[in-house]
């Protein structure tokens, strides 16, 4: 049994990426990965908060880390944005003693202390490195043979690092997709930006980036896209129709969380994976693949 302190993040836990949380918990069972949710966690600190008030962001982040430290397990999060910020907190506290002193003081006001020992990991890292490809393949009931998947990493899971995969040419998700029996298509933009939170304030820019990603994936033969981040998934999925409208394209690419793909391959029923939550429906593509 492998134990982890689970930090779902706002989007996966109670927001637009609920399917991510559902499917993550569902597929963690088979390879004995115990995701124990951190009680009463608060926002990870978040990039927007860092851009407004760094000390507050570090303290918000620090509270989660201090609580997790009490448990002693690695902290794992499915959300790339939470992942990058929590790691940033760990390195900032090591690198800037003046900041650490203030964070310590603030945490103390809440009766907490953080000694900097929690390792923050992404869910993909845990499946790929702690569970391993062979073990994952052994749990596959419905091989996704012939399914062409574009493995989309986005930015914050591989950068700034140093992390568990190459910052510009990562391979872990590709291998994971292959271990499920599917085909990982070559995808040159696999670690490029989806626009992130700028989809809200500068929609045009983000739509341009999303368009490039969808175009690259589909012109390389993708039937669907696998993602590792709630924001990427929302941008590529919920805004696909707006991309089509703006650029006069006709993309119809389902965008799944990698845990949803794992779940389908493991034979878990689709309701438990939140597949119906995909705006661009994955039903046909998945059915087609499973019937081959």
């Amino acid at each position, binding site marked *: 049994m492998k134990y982890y302190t689970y930090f779902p993040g706002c989007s996966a836990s109670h927001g*637009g990426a609920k399917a991510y949380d559902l499917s993550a918990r569902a597929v963690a069972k088979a390879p004995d990965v115990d995701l124990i949710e951190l009680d009463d966690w*608060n926002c990870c600190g978040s990039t927007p908060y860092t851009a407004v008030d760094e000390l507050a962001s570090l303290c918000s982040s620090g509270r989660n880390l201090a609580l997790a430290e009490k448990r002693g397990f690695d902290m794992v999060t499915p959300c790339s944005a939470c992942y990058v910020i929590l790691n940033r907190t760990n390195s900032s506290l090591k690198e800037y003693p003046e900041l650490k002193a203030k964070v310590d003081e603030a945490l103390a006001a809440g009766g907490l202390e953080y000694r900097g020992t929690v390792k923050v990991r992404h869910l993909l890292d845990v499946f790929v490195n702690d569970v391993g490809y062979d073990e994952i393949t052994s749990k596959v009931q419905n091989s996704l043979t012939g399914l062409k998947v574009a493995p989309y990493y986005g930015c914050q899971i591989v950068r700034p690092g140093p992390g568990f995969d190459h910052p510009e040419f990562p391979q872990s998700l590709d291998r994971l997709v292959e271990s499920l029996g599917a085909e990982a298509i070559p995808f040159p933009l696999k670690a490029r930006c989806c626009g992130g939170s700028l989809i809200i304030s*500068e929609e045009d820019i983000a739509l341009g980036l999303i368009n490039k990603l969808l175009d690259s994936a589909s012109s390389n033969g993708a039937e669907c896209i696998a993602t590792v981040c709630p924001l990427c998934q929302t941008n590529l999925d919920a805004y696909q129709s707006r991309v089509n409208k703006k650029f006069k394209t006709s993309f119809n690419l389902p965008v799944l969380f990698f845990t949803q793909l794992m779940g389908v391959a493991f034979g878990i029923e689709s309701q438990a994976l939140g597949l119906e939550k995909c705006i661009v429906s994955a039903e046909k593509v998945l059915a087609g693949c499973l019937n081959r």
Partner: protein
Amino acid sequence: MKTKVLNGKNLAQEISALPGGEGINLCIQCGTCSASCPNANRMEHAPRELIALARAGMYDEILSSNSMWFCLSCYLCTVRCPRGIKITDMMHALDRVATRRQLSNARTQTPTMYKSFSDFVYSIGSIPEVGFMTWFYLLSNPLRALKMMPVALSLLKHGRLPVKARRLKPEAERQRRAILDKAEELEGIL
């Protein structure tokens, strides 16, 4: 909140004293960052130029530009910089300085968006997506909310727009507020 305020007298030095800003003196102006940035074309000053302006002391020009607000935090510049400068972190530092000086650029709504986001992080400790979006549109441009209706509706239809916000248990909430209030009291280093 009480903060150390930059007075722009020696901008490069002041920025280099901020966490994340140390790199400003190391830059050799090679342009790798600007070349790698997916948004450089939309920035008034791409990252390299921003650093050059800072070293030339062009205080108002930098802080009132839209440049750092257009940073996507994709970190491509950071991994490629041959001087190992943490450019993304520097952009965030400039965001903070601009907010403090209220020189936020009116030509983009990103500062407002970040502020709305942060208001929720501070007040309830998590982001209720509906509440956050509503708050943001009210602050920036209510008419845009109408344009976003189709997306919102499709999300709602697929059960991805929860209306209830997540709340912490009272004791945890008290602890969280105590920490953040203390942070507010301490002099921020920006």
